[in-house]
């Protein structure tokens, strides 16, 4: 528990919730990142601008914070590229097949008490924990 950071977690989480509320309030959209991003690959007319702007916002928001504040963590080094590629493929296929990720199901869906999102969230938390267990133990 040496790296437990309750305050930054609560503040950061509140920002994420606020972002989801703003996007629904203004644009009528659910802030599901995998859906917003993957929608760019099958573009419908007039439907790409807000997606690109949201992604730009993610980059700007995170970069400003990471560049302007003292580093809160040491970047990971020497991590396997093969693992990154396999993980990226699984996350891409999985979120596309399961219609959502941590944001769309885990935050927005759970807040709406959607049964699909609750099942999805329990499932990805479960397989995520099992994966870490097997990768660290074996």
């Amino acid at each position, binding site marked *: 528990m040496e790296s437990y950071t309750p305050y930054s977690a609560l503040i950061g989480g509140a920002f994420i919730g606020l972002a989801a509320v703003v996007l629904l309030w203004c*644009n009528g959209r659910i802030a599901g990142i995998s859906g917003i991003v993957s929608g760019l690959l099958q573009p419908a007319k007039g439907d790409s601008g807000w997606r690109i702007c949201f992604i730009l916002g993610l980059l700007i928001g995170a970069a400003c914070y990471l560049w302007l504040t003292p580093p809160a963590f040491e970047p990971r080094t020497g991590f396997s590229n093969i693992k990154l590629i396999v993980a990226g493929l699984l996350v891409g296929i999985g979120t596309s097949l399961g219609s959502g990720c941590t*944001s769309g199901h885990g935050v927005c869906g759970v807040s709406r008490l959607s049964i699909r999102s609750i099942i999805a969230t329990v499932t990805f938390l479960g397989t*995520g924990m099992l994966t870490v267990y097997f990768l660290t133990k074996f």
Partner: protein
Amino acid sequence: MTKNLTSLFAGILFGLGLAISQMVNPQKVIAFLDITGNWDPSLILVMFAAVAVSFVGFRLVTKQSTPLVETRFRIPDRTDIDSKLVCGAALFGIGWGMAGYCPGPAISALLSGSYEPLIFVTAMFAGFGINQRMTRT
């Protein structure tokens, strides 16, 4: 135009949240998933705070008949549990646990100076494409 600006603003808030909460740090995410090891429960609080704010916010927002700059709300209304949902979520969790990135933090970390998100996000786009091709008939 306005809808792009409001979306940009929401994106900035989201990116700030991911950076402040350190979800952009894959080591933090893996420490959260490592419940039998040196467990770091911080990300439960991230989720708790995000859900608490949107739980209240969504209820206030959907009292309006339309969103501010769009013609209608687009909120999923499916309630069926199918194998796509469960298998997709299961695969996503495996990838999440392997590298410690989910889509939002990976994209947000693209400018962090680490090369990891670039490789991950490229593969993730390939994954979106593979699934869209498989399900298109």
